[in-house]
């Protein structure tokens, strides 16, 4: 299973997602699945840099890419203390619609088929079902 490590630098988000998608290129995924996987990975990477590693360049964002028969699984981990992932506001509630934060995790939960937090929230495991 390929494992990647990136310094906590938001400028690397495109490079990181390109590397992840390159690892999936043999699966010949359709453009919609690629869009979802890229978006969810980039949102997770950005959260790991900003909120997990707090932009500390000496800390890494670790990425694991697992290719199953009918599933792509990504694990994005930071070196932070985790967070209270159970008490996230729903950005689609009327009172939250105009808020400018909180949509990254929401998108991940909606575009992926399975999302679980590990290590108190410092690791995010997300699975996308694929049709080969």
């Amino acid at each position, binding site marked *: 299973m390929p494992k990647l490590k990136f310094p906590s630098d*938001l*400028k690397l*988000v*495109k490079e990181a997602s390109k590397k992840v998608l390159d690892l999936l290129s043999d699966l010949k995924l359709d*453009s*919609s699945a690629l*869009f979802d996987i*890229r*978006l969810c990975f*980039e*949102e997770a990477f*950005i959260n790991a840099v900003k909120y997990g590693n707090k932009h500390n360049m000496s800390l890494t964002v670790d990425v694991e890419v697992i290719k199953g028969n009918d599933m792509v699984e990504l694990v994005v981990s930071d070196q932070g203390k985790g967070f209270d992932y159970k008490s996230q506001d729903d*950005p*689609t509630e009327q009172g939250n*619609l*105009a*808020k*400018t*934060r909180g*949509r*990254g995790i*929401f*998108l991940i939960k*909606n*575009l992926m088929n399975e999302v679980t937090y590990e290590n108190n929230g410092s690791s995010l495991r997300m699975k996308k079902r694929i049709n080969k």
Partner: protein
Amino acid sequence: MHVTHSKIKDFVAVAIEGEVDLNSSPQLRKVFTEILSQGASKILINFVKVSYIDSSGLATLIEMMQRLKKENGQMRLAGMSDKIKSLFEITKLDKLFLIYRTEEEALAAA
């Protein structure tokens, strides 16, 4: 990302080309601030050439719309691909923004 704008009827039409994300959002915010400082109150954003948007891009659009609303202005969005439109639907931002299929429809709407 590349952003151009032109006057169409009483709208400033902003055409975005490329990706609206964490790294390009400051550029979009800058263009928008320039347009607002020139007194624009009706802004139409054309998404025909937008290939990708993330939560930062969505947040930037919300911020821009709120600034425009404070000036009693209005923002319309048009020309989204099905994929990008689906992100507005999932997040229910289609209830917050005025979204039209094409630029022509957006300009023609009352």
